């Protein structure tokens, strides 16, 4: 019953954290300048009309009343209205979330596919040219602002070379989205065998996903490298060598398997980077996700989406980290069985 206890222990930390999160998001919006009533009313109306609107929107109530209304709304799934799309924020989120998830997962996949081998090779060839190059590539990946790499990529691969598609959404023009199952176009088109949509979705995804993936690859590579170094020195790897297990299997089997467990724990942090990078990358590539939505809303001081985005990301971050802890517990028999 070790795992259940572990689950409960972690869960008991999650709830106060989530409460804290809502207090922080509420406080931040409460002091956010830009009177939503003024924005809603438009320039041709009198201050009296604005006052009336404020009252209607409950902006004249004390903070704690507004917080209570906010939190009970959130629990009911009412995230307020967006003044720029005129729709409930939840509906806008639902529409845009698949785009964000698709980009995030694709980037994570790219980061893992590059980061893990890079880290392994750096560790195996420690202090050789391979290690140094890997280190520089990794550090350079994090050192470049994502909007900078994104725009450079767009300029080079779309404008100059024409190999990347125009940054106009998730599918090329004239291509109908695949039948919605998961909302992720790549997955859905695979499931329905819609190869045309698959090709287009992958093409559109390519540049933003690489941009975002490169920016979070370094922590993965670094973590893999350092844990691999430690594990390659461990007794069980030595005994694996001594037992004549082939080199590839020792490195990519025995050692990597163990090295990936700590990597799972930093996936939480990587996810945080991804969510942050997402907002910027989505904005650069006009990717129709929630990050882009939040940033556009920032410009128009559309507080509903901003507040909801920050809250949503934080909650998602907490949940993801919790899930990662649970996965960690399930994978590592030392936690699962004790």
């Amino acid at each position, binding site marked *: 019953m070790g795992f259940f206890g572990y689950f409960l222990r972690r869960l008991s930390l999650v709830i106060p954290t989530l409460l804290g999160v809502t207090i922080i998001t509420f406080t931040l919006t409460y002091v956010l300048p830009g009177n939503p009533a003024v924005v809603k009313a438009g320039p041709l109306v009198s201050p009296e009309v604005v006052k009336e609107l404020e009252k209607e929107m409950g902006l004249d109530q004390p903070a704690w009343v507004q917080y209570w209304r906010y939190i009970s709304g959130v629990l009911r799934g009412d995230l307020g209205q967006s003044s720029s799309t005129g729709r409930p924020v939840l509906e806008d989120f639902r529409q845009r979330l698949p785009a964000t998830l698709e980009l995030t997962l694709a980037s994570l996949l790219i980061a893992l596919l590059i980061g893990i081998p890079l880290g392994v090779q750096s560790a195996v060839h420690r202090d050789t040219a391979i290690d140094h190059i890997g280190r520089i590539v990794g550090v350079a990946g994090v050192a470049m602002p994502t909007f900078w790499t994104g725009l450079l990529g767009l300029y080079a691969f779309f404008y100059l070379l024409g190999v990347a598609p125009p940054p106009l959404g998730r599918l090329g023009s004239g291509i109908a989205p695949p039948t919605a199952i998961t909302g992720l176009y790549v997955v859905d088109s695979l499931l329905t065998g819609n190869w045309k949509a698959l090709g287009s979705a992958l093409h559109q995804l390519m540049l933003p996903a690489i941009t975002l993936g490169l920016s979070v690859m370094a922590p993965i590579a670094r973590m893999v490298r350092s844990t691999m170094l430690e594990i390659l020195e461990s*007794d069980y790897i030595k005994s694996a*060598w*001594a037992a004549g297990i*082939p080199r590839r299997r020792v490195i990519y089997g025995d050692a990597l398997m163990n090295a990936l467990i700590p990597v799972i724990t930093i996936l939480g942090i990587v996810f945080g980077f991804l969510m942050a990078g997402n907002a910027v990358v989505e904005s650069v590539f006009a990717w129709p996700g929630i990050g882009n939505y939040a940033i556009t809303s920032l410009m128009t001081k559309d507080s509903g989406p901003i507040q909801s985005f920050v809250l949503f990301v934080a909650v998602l971050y907490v949940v993801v980290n919790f899930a990662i802890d649970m996965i960690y517990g399930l994978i590592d028999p030392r936690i699962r*069985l004790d």
Partner: protein
Amino acid sequence: MNAASVVDVRGLSVRFASDRGEIEAVDAASFDVREGEILGLVGESGSGKTVTATAILRLIRKPGRQTGGSILFDGRDLARIPEDELQQIRGAKIAMISQTPRTSLNPLITVGRQVARLFQLHAGLSAADSRKRALEMLTLVGIPEPERRARQYAHQFSGGMCQRVMIAMALTTSPRLLIADEPTTGLDVSTAARILDLLRDLGARTGASILLITHDLGVVATTCQRVAVMHAGQVVEIAPVRSLFRQPAHPYTRALVRSIPRIDREIVMEPVPGSVPSLLNPPAGCRYAGRCPWVEDRCRREKPAMTPVAPEHFVACFAVEDGRAAAV
């Protein structure tokens, strides 16, 4: 040399690079392990025993490297054969068990699987057959309820149990040589004794020769046929057990034998006077010179060669050569 050697180590040198210079961890060590025997390799911590064992399997890792000597196994020099051939030898013909059984098992693979995969790898058995053989092997090394235990992970095993698993793994493919590196470290006395019994028993049954690395002369006395004494990276004396304990020749060996507690076989050794010399740019001569009561100028300048003092009994010491040692 009467019996055939399984492995013949000749003039083995291993060095480690460091910031401050080269560390000569093993210096021209020579010894052999013969068919069916248990050879003890004794010495204080840091005397180069484990490095020697690691070198036999050619598993010295950077910044270390073998700088000289040969390791003859089946008439071939292990230091010079290609890596993929060596892969066929490691685990299959030369197996090793370590002093840290608990950490030497992969924490994420079930114990049974770790044993079974060696059968698959070295004996080419199918997955099902390997599993069966693994269970047999676990039974053989005295793991109770092998079916259940095979599905467990290393952290659910005690140290002694882990060592049994290690032995089971080492013996899966009936190796010709088993290197046991301090196999009883960290185990309580009775467990240690049982592990040693098991080793001796299995060694005899499978015909494997054993290189038993230990710092415990007591273990050597009860387990080994012959013994090689190492000090600061050099082999200073080789002798049959009986001969060594009756008449230790090298001053270091004498100190070691003196340090054995009388009644029990506690692993702790009385310290030999003085401390192990730095292996960083060591002096040219005998490395025991700094601690030796009979030291003379020549000891610091020249390295003594192995000379016979009795049948099968060799020692590297000018004082013994000169007969001065006998005076004590």
